[in-house]
């Protein structure tokens, strides 16, 4: 049969079944079980209204419970059992086995890098794009174009960037734009500006942002104990502060590397096979996709800033940079945090980019892909579940924070 026709029938069955449930169950409730007529009409209506919320909620609760809540516990159980031994309980053996594998540590290390770089860069670019496009006439067109990658699949983006990173032998025309640009550098003043001064500047900016974020977290401790959610948060704040300090140290030491590194000018590079740096080239893909999302939300937040505060700053003689960093950014801090966390969640769950572009070769493995490898290639469900639990552990702080915030809003 024609695949289009077959698809159409399947679609009709699926959607029809769903609509039928809601319509049918309410009809049965109102007409058959508790009909709104006869001697007990009033009582019946009340009874029907007690049952109805659950009728409305049942499919949602069922699907949520089955597809999200139950797997958390089931995966935890599976991670403690061995499939080959018929599902026998093996304690932490899977975790031990996983931790003995260098690939796992590579995946964890890469994942942490992704978690730091992608949300930070997407939010920074998004903020920059939001601020710049809000001030010009053709801003909405520019916004749509920057937002566009949102619609492109990770796999499609993988193909797009594979073409960008494509390398061909030195004696042929380069068809990847990155190599084509790379071959323009020959060690002169242009190379110094773009390959040493610019990365150094970006590293410095990154160090500054991280230091600032770390300071925001640590400041309440330094100033007074009362602010910022009480004593329970002190370890978290110290942890974030320490992590920020480490990242600042890391970026400052890489700064030295930027200036002492011996660039292989004039040779086309196979970018995706250069260990360590290839991870960053994969991250570029996700940053490219997520920046539009950050931009849209941050732009709305920027528009929500009361004009009076900005006007007051202008009258006091603040320059545009001061207005941006001292007036606007602090006021939209809440939104920045929301954007940051949302992108963090995307990073943790994402798997397609690495899967499509390198499949974890050349030291680009990430946890989600490692897990897929273990489950469906090595068929080792125990270790696969164990690594899924590791991903869950990484998300848990965000989960707790989300629920805490939601409950605060309800009250």
């Amino acid at each position, binding site marked *: 049969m024609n695949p289009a026709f077959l698809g159409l029938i399947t679609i009709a069955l699926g959607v029809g079944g769903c609509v039928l449930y809601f319509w049918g169950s309410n009809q049965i409730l109102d007409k058959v079980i508790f009909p709104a007529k006869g001697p007990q009409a009033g009582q019946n209506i009340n009874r029907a209204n007690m049952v*109805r919320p659950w009728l409305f909620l049942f*499919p949602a609760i069922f699907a949520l419970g089955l597809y999200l809540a139950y797997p958390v516990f089931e995966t935890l159980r599976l991670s403690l059992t061995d499939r080959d031994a018929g599902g026998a309980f093996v304690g932490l053996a899977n975790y031990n086995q996983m931790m003995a594998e260098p690939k796992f540590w590579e995946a964890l290390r890469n994942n942490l890098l992704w978690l730091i770089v992608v949300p930070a860069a997407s939010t920074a670019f998004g903020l920059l794009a939001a601020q710049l496009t809000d001030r010009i006439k053709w801003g909405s067109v520019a916004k749509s174009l920057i*937002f566009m990658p949102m619609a492109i*699949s990770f796999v499609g983006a993988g193909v797009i960037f594979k073409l960008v990173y494509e390398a061909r032998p030195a004696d042929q025309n380069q068809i990847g734009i990155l190599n084509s640009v790379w071959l323009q550098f020959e060690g002169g003043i242009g190379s110094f500006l773009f390959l040493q001064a610019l990365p150094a500047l970006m590293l410095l900016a990154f160090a500054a942002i991280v230091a600032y974020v770390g300071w925001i977290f640590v400041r309440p401790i330094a100033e007074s104990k009362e602010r910022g959610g009480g004593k329970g948060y002190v370890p978290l704040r110290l942890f974030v502060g320490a992590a920020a300090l480490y990242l600042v140290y890391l970026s400052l030491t890489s700064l030295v590397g930027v200036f002492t590194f011996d660039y292989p000018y004039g040779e086309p590079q196979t970018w995706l096979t250069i260990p360590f740096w290839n991870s960053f080239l994969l991250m570029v893909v996700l940053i490219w996709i997520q920046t539009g999302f950050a931009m849209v939300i941050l732009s709305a937040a920027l528009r929500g800033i009361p004009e009076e505060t900005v006007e007051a700053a202008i009258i006091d003689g603040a320059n545009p940079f001061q207005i941006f960093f001292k007036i606007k950014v602090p006021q939209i801090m*809440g939104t920045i945090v929301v954007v940051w966390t949302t992108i963090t969640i995307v990073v943790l769950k994402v798997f397609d980019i690495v899967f499509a572009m390198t499949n974890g070769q050349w030291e680009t493995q990430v946890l989600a892909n490692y897990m897929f490898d273990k489950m*469906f290639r090595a068929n080792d469900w125990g270790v696969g579940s164990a690594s899924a639990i590791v991903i869950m552990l990484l998300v848990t702080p965000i989960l707790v924070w989300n629920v805490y915030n939601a409950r605060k809003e309800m009250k």
Partner: protein
Amino acid sequence: MDSIAGSKSSLGWAVNISVVLLVALWVFPTFGLLVSSFRTADQIVGSGWWASMFPSEQTERFRASDPDENRVQRGDLFVVEGNIFEENGGGGDIQSWGTSSRAVDAYQPGDVADLGDGETFTVDADGNYAWSGNDEQISGRGQRAFVTAISPPEFTTENYVNIMTSGNDTDNMAKAFFNTLTVTIPATIIPIVVAAFAAYALAWMDFPGRAILIACVVGLLVVPLQLALIPLLKLHVGVGIGKGYLGVWLAHTGFGLPLAIYLLRNYMVGLPRDIIENAKVDGATDFQIFTKIILPLSFPALASFAIFQFLWTWNDLLVAKVFLIDATGQTTVMTDQIVNLLGTRGGNWEILATAAFVSIAVPLCVFFAMQKYLVRGLLAGSVK
């Protein structure tokens, strides 16, 4: 904020230029792929896509046609004549040519090259060549020559025709296209219907445990779907659904629900209380209120989530790989087929680029047509 005195600063130009650069940086990669998908395989490997807009100078090697079959006797000489563009494809304006790889631009069009002992070779500007010599010289393989020509930009839609209608099984995307549609449409509609009812219950109906349920939904927002893969695959196989459309719809429904309920509830809570209470006083049941009042009023939120879920299911790879694609390969979706193409056709950019663009085209159209709603939905969910 242009109305404020002094805000129109000298930075205006700098801002415009930076935005142009930023937009260029963001559009360039996609544009490159789009251009590549309209070029032939030879053009793609011959030059970067950015060069395809301009007449390009290309040096190509070719051979004169087989002398044993094509030579013509003129007096005591033998001659092979032909046109390189007719025989090898392409076209353009010949700038220079040569007979050795060390001097590919040794001669101007129309020059006659002396190959020694009376053997000559000539190429004119239109690609007509003549190779003449004695019986022994004009034999064996055709004379080799290098031609540098400026060819006009050339585009073709042949790649798209190939990908959608013909080609072998691994290249043909038509089936995968319909499979993707079959996955996407119910996987977009079912969660919306389910979530809309649940969101209404959570927003406007009174029952015990409502607050806990809302907290659960918020918590489940971040649960990685990776956890669900093994237990649910086991379950699907266990209850007999196996790998198939029903399983993948249910999975997408489950994974999309938290965000859907969260977005829709946030929106519905904001609707005016009076309307709902008036309807109740008039004797409407909650089912009637929901279908006749709330659903039409919630259209913006429903549309925004619909777009979200559509993009997410259309672009999904992981869920389809685990819950849908079986050993027969009959139910493969486009993302999976592209990943396979990346493996088998890594260097064939004309196929890869076109396949990727076929899969990108539909979400891009939806995105640009419905962008307004998408942004509105994003804002409803993320900014308080």
